[in-house]
């Protein structure tokens, strides 16, 4: 590297540290989906940092709401509010007007969710967000194994499906958002009950979309269709009937037989705050339901 005015021990130290890094990476990477030897360390750090993150979030709420404030100061504020209200009204009108028997089912599902009679929901707050530099769309919530949260549970908020729990500590849990590149969800078109798969595009800002590809090649999605979760098999992470988003753009390529559609998620991932973790459906853990026990 550079002329040797640096003491020799400095380079030995560097070598040692690099070796340590590579060792940790190797240990953690080799184990893939199974539990890795680094996990206890991860849990330990989470146990320390969970409460710190929670405290920082609540202490600095007045400061962190500043960007919102600036976005709202001028006349834009009023116009924005009006448009948002109009939009919300129109969207709910649209969804209500379209309702058919199948959708009624779905709506009943959401209603169950809302009054928590069917779903047991643990409320939680988002206390940390992964940076884009890490290329992963995950957040920390302030509910953990202590509150009955386990990996592979569904996370929702008032608007729809948020993601699934991937790991927990006693006080916190990490939620992989459905817009993560690594996330695939089974979805069902609200109007035709067609099944499909939704993949995230990893973008966190407002215009992030999910990509929907239908299982049945002869069917094509229609703009404005709502997409609900289909529920996963074998105890896998998603419960059925949670609204995911709305089809905004249908693309067909002559090269491929399938048509894909862009789905705009109902949940605004750039301002996630209060979410719910579904710990039980009709009094039973979701995993039991999925395997039909």
């Amino acid at each position, binding site marked *: 590297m550079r002329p040797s005015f*640096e003491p020799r021990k400095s380079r030995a*130290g560097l070598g040692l*540290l*690099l070796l340590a890094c590579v060792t940790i*990476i190797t240990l953690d990477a080799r184990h893939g989906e199974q539990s890795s030897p680094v996990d206890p360390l991860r849990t330990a750090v*989470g146990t320390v940092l*969970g409460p710190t993150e929670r405290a920082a979030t609540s202490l600095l709420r007045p400061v962190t709401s500043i960007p919102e404030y600036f976005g709202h100061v001028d006349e834009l504020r009023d116009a924005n509010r009006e448009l948002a209200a109009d939009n919300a009204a129109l969207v709910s009108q649209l969804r209500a007007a379209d309702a058919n028997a199948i959708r009624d089912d779905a709506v009943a599902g959401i209603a169950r969710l809302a009054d928590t009679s069917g779903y047991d929901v643990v409320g939680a707050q988002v206390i*940390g967000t992964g940076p884009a530099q890490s*290329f992963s*769309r995950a957040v920390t919530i302030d509910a953990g194994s202590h509150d009955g949260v386990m990996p592979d549970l569904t996370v929702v908020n008032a608007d729809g499906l948020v993601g699934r729990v991937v790991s927990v500590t006693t006080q916190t849990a990490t939620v992989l958002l459905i817009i993560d590149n690594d996330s695939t969800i089974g979805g069902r078109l609200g109007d035709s009950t067609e099944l499909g798969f939704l993949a995230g595009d990893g973008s966190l800002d407002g215009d992030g979309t999910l990509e929907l590809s239908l299982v049945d090649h002869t069917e094509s999605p229609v703009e404005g269709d709502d997409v609900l979760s289909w529920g996963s098999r074998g105890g896998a992470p998603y419960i059925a009937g949670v609204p995911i988003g709305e089809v905004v753009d249908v693309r067909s390529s002559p090269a491929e037989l399938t048509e894909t559609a862009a789905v705009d998620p109902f949940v605004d991932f750039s301002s996630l705050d209060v979410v719910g973790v579904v710990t039980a459906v009709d009094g039973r853990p979701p995993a039991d339901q999925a395997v039909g026990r």
Partner: protein
Amino acid sequence: MTTYVRGAIIAVLIVATVTLQVSVFSHFSINGVVPDLALLVVIAAALVRGPNYAALVGFAAGLVLDLAPPADHTAGRWALSFVLVGYLTGLAKADSDTTVPGTLLMVAAGAFIGTSVFALTGLVLREPGVDVASALEVLPVAVGYDVLLTPLVIPLVLLLFRRLEPAERW
């Protein structure tokens, strides 16, 4: 001040930095990119105490960033990036006196190296979500944001490091 007390203070500094980065600055993100405060701490360590020490601080800070929720990438990737950043900026510092433009340049270079090495290890390990396009998208924003925060963060951390131990050896 004993070595233990100094170590404890730096540990607290690192935990506080990572907390701020994850829980507070995430609200001020640009396209999801958050300023890398931990990286600024490592560079401040390099400015005051040289490559050896900065590499050690980089290892510790990187490891906490790797393990702190909601991180779910392979552990050790940020640690590797920060060890390299700490060591290289420490070497660069040994060549010149600390000036304002010099520091800004060092932060820009450090942010570039840190983010690139992290992305590269992701590519090598085939981590989900990492590809060259998104890395190129994130890089300039990350570098710019870190440079933007340099005047606010670096002087404070420099002051702390100088208080901890007067820079007699470096």
